[in-house]
């Protein structure tokens, strides 16, 4: 099937892919960046934060190791290991570092120096322990401790951990400006601005003077780095194995002398500029989800010029996109989470670092490329680059970065076709985005139409104005001290306590059997949602202050629209738009639980609230018949039933309305969405729920119905999910549909899937993900993972290699609703 896109990849790309796969199995923690920042901060303790950051970035540009391998088409890999794995020391929990590396020698080795681990050398270990000592009262968590109001310390334990583990780099950097304007021009503007304000220093602009100096320093660093690569290419050319490679390296050298300072002149230069800028962003610690938005838009004209002038053939151009995709996916970080206990246990069971809970979430770039869409004037923005990027995904089957395709009435048939074929083949990439509704949500935030048309997706599903919006990391499913619907449900049932963990909530309330009516319970649910959202919104303001105070993000500010103009870093509110996301999740579990209570206890009155409460407390033990009745007789969300669907609409609307109306950080907007990366883990800390779920079992995923509750087939499923208030979901949210392999076998399968997506969009849905997988194939992959290394599935907002997922996530995926025939 779909043979028209099966054009073989070149030998050189095969080599690069093999190299990547090889190094995937042999990852090392790379401490270069951490050493540079630690040395710089140590020697410049009194420098103002924005200057200190600029100084470090310059130092990084000037001294980072340069590595060029024989087959490399693009430059900048962290070498000698091409996959740069690191964590950012100033953002990492120092107690985690001590726990892992300060452990006994034997345990340290068992965790970090065996096959399947992310390797850490003895020498690096010593260094990191010593460095951790330096950072313990100077890192981001320390800043937070110094300014958070006391009540946050009682309740915000998880949030502090979260804050300490991830910088707010969840956004769409302005790669277009880097490629079409260049750092040289930005530097000139910063100089002019500096001259100007020096003449009239005021209380308002005094900090801007420091900001412009910092920007100039960063530009100098970037221009220097590019020239260092030019130098390295020339050197490498001297020993090149063939005359062709020699010529190629010399050409790369010429380009590196030109780009970064100046706008890219051809496709290679455009792609290389994106990569160089990406490396800067990562070094600056914004690694989580730097997402290249709408890059096809500025690469298209460069590509077409190259093809016209004969600089590139069609095949050569495709090879460049292939190589680019392989390379950008190399930039990954490690999420500092697993403990030595977990690692040792995993290794003893023959598992790798990847197999730990979180799987893909332990090591990831979280990056996402958005293509297609609309130009500012409202015409379609699709070109040959859009097509070639899709084709590269189709050919290479890589899990990272993710891919988002924007859909509107201008989307060409070929892009539709290729997008669907690609999604079938590569496990859910691209995801499809509905321009009509998403643009409307941007307008609702107050963004003018021309800018709204230029949104892109970052992270997993979150839309923002590409290159112009600074968006702090969204909290997912209440992770990080936010408002979690499933926690609130537990409080409302069990009287302000989570029976699984014993943790108490903030608002004392009744127990299930004490409510007089369902309306009373609903009112309590609303009161709790409101409380936790207010709490969360307040927390975010202080989190923003942490960054504003001491942790600027110059790599973002140097290109993000608004910063240069206003003289403010993104963390000071300099970006043209600012947003802060909050995601709710477990929608199915919550809706079905409420429906069960309503129907059995209050409408039909066949079960008393006390009996249901007792059954829940007992985790259904001795109540199996009641549980079975619930599972089989209560109408659940996901089947196009009026009642459960309208309950779902009630609480999702309430959440969205309340969160969206709170004043956002940096005077931006609050943006509600629906997403969850932790539904299996969160299930483990959730006691039995009224929908028949047992304690510890996975929750329903994001806004999707509970996997086993779907009984009326795919159309009812799609219709139910379309009933969410998507027009208020400014932070995104997708339907995740798994199609049976049999259903894509028919001749016109692509056109049917296209119609399904279009129908969902017309009903108001905003994002559509689908994966095609055979249960048989997935089972086989569990048995013989080595034979299914490139089997990709879409599991949350991202795609992942199936065999890298932890076993319980795999099981949950397999049993999730499947469209059979």
């Amino acid at each position, binding site marked *: 099937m779909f043979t028209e896109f099966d054009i073989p990849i070149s030998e050189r790309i095969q080599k690069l892919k093999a190299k990547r796969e090889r190094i995937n199995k042999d990852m090392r923690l790379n401490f270069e960046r951490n050493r540079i920042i630690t040395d710089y901060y140590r020697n410049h303790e009194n420098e103002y934060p924005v200057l200190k950051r600029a100084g470090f970035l310059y130092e990084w540009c000037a001294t980072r190791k340069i590595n060029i391998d024989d087959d490399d088409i693009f430059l900048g890999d962290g070498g000698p290991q091409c996959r740069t794995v690191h964590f950012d020391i100033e953002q990492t929990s120092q107690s985690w570092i001590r726990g892992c590396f300060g452990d006994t020698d034997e345990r340290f080795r068992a965790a970090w120096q065996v096959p399947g681990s992310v390797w850490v050398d003895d020498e690096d270990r010593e260094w990191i322990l010593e460095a951790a000592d330096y950072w313990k009262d100077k890192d981001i968590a320390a800043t937070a401790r110094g300014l958070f109001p006391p009540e946050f310390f009682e309740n915000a334990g998880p949030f502090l951990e979260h804050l300490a583990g991830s910088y707010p780099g969840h956004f769409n950097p302005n790669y277009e400006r880097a490629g079409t304007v260049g750092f040289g021009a930005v530097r000139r503007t910063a100089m002019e601005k500096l001259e100007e304000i020096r003449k009239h220093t005021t209380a308002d602009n005094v900090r801007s003077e420091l900001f412009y100096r910092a920007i100039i320093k960063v530009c100098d660093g970037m221009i220097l780095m590019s020239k260092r690569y030019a130098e390295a290419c020339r050197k490498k050319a001297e020993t090149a194995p063939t005359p062709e490679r020699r010529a190629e390296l010399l050409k790369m050298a010429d380009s590196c002398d030109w780009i970064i300072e100046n706008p890219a002149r051809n496709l290679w230069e455009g792609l290389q500029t994106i990569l160089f800028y990406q490396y800067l962003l990562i070094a600056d610690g914004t690694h989580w989800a730097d997402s290249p938005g709408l890059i096809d838009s500025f690469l298209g004209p460069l590509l077409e010029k190259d093809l016209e002038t004969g600089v590139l053939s069609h095949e050569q151009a495709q090879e460049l996109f292939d190589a680019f995709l392989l390379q950008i996916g190399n930039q990954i970080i490690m999420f500092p989470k697993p403990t030595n206990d977990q690692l040792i246990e995993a290794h003893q069971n023959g598992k790798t670092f990847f197999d730990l809970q979180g799987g893909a979430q332990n090591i990831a770039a979280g990056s996402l490329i958005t293509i297609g869409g609309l130009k500012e004037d409202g015409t379609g923005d699709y070109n040959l680059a859009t097509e070639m990027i899709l084709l590269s995904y189709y050919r290479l089957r890589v899990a990272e970065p993710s891919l988002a395709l924007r859909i509107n009435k201008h989307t060409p048939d070929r892009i539709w076709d290729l997008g669907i074929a690609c999604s079938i083949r590569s496990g859910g990439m691209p995801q499809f985005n509905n321009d009509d509704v998403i643009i409307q949500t941007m307008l609702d935030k107050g963004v003018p139409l021309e800018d709204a048309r230029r949104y892109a997706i970052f992270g997993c599903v979150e839309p923002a104005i590409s290159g112009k919006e600074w968006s702090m990391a969204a909290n997912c499913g209440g992770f990080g001290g936010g408002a979690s619907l499933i926690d609130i449900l537990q409080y409302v049932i069990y009287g302000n306590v989570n029976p699984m963990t014993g943790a108490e909530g903030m608002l004392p309330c009744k127990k299930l059997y004490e409510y007089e009516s369902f309306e009373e319970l609903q009112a309590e649910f609303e009161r709790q949602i409101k409380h936790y959202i207010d709490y969360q919104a307040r927390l975010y303001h202080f989190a923003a202050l942490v960054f504003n105070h001491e942790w600027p993000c110059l790599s973002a500010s140097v290109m993000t629209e608004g910063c240069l103009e206003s003289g403010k870093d993104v963390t000071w509110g300099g970006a043209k738009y600012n947003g802060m996301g909050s995601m709710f999740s477990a929608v199915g579990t919550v809706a079905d639980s409420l429906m069960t209570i309503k129907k059995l206890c209050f409408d039909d009155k066949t079960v008393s609230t006390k009996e249901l409460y007792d059954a829940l407390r007992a985790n259904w033990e001795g109540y199996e018949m009641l549980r079975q009745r619930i599972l089989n007789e209560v109408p659940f969300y996901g089947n196009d039933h009026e009642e459960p669907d309208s309950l779902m609409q009630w609480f999702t609307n309430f959440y969205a309305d309340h969160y969206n109306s709170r004043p956002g950080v940096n005077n931006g907007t609050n943006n509600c969405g629906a997403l969850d990366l932790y539904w299996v883990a969160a299930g483990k800390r959730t006691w039995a729920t009224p929908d028949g779920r*047992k304690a510890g079992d996975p929750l329903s995923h994001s806004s999707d119905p509970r996997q086993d509750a779907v009984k009326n087939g795919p*159309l009812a499923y799609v219709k139910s999910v379309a009933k969410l208030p998507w027009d208020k979901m400014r932070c995104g949210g997708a339907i995740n549909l798994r199609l049976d392999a049999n259903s894509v076998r028919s*001749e016109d399968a692509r056109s049917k899937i296209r*119609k399904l997506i279009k129908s969902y969009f*017309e*009903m108001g849905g905003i994002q559509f993900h689908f994966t095609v997988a055979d249960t048989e194939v997935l089972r086989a992959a569990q048995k013989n993972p080595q034979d299914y290394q490139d089997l990709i599935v879409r599991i949350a907002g991202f795609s992942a290699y199936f065999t890298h997922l932890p076993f319980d996530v795999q099981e949950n995926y397999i049993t999730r609703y499947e469209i059979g025939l």
Partner: protein
Amino acid sequence: MVYKNVKGRIFDIQGYAVHDGPGIRTTVFTKGCPLRCLWCHSPESQHREFELGYLPVKCIGADVCQNACLDACPEGAVARDEPVEALDKSGLIQKAKIDREKCTNCLQCTEVCITKALYASGWDTTVDEVYERLLKDRGFFKDGGGVTISGGEPMAQFDFTCNLAKRLKDSGIHICLDTTGFAATELFAKILPYIDLFLYDIKHMDTKMHKKITGVGNEQILKNARFLAEHGAALQIRVPVIPKLTDKRANLRQTAEFCASLGDAVKLVQLLPYHKTGRMKYERLGWRYKLTNVEPPADEFMNNILAMFQSFGLNCQLH
């Protein structure tokens, strides 16, 4: 209008039925069929009477249910099976075991089975009820999609099928009728105005062979096909390619000739290679699957047949 209350017996309604005609469709499956094709992949569609269906994987064990199904059965046809591990690995359970020799399909056990592991293979309904249900999927029917009435043989419940088709037609919904063609010609004449596309099976050109593999001869079927073609119907012909039964080249060639002779009425010919997915359904009903040693035809063979059909100028595809 009285037709709303016309009764019908169906065994399923399925959304996103991708193999039942153009676009996104929801298919209604009527129960009962005059044919008995050996390869039938929906055995529950054959009999007009309800049968007892049993899905052991859903059964939670007679201990939990306190023998509900055992006690309900007047024939003593339900017993406890050998103990097996429960799905959630919580211990051993004894599921229900049906003695099909004793079972009279009275369905009393299905009424007490909380998990619906025991279920009736179908239900009685009305035109109105089905119509309301189908209307819910209307948002998907744009761009050429709609409703397919399939079976069993929908023409065997003519009043129901025809009134449902009328009702849908009145609402502007595109309708396919998936039929074996085995019904009186005047009934086809009556339903013709309401059907946008007939999905029409031609199973074998030789009537003796046809009788052997489906239980009936093909004269009526071929006659109706010609009648429909001559009276303005649009036909999508479906040709099952079943190894050893229908896959002789001579037969397939004659089928192609016949399709070609129907002229413009034939919009598409679909070749349906045999597949095994229906097999599990036989187990659920406790029936024997008759085609145990038949394997799906090879791709190469199917491509050859495809080329042969196309050589007659037919718009033909593999399905």
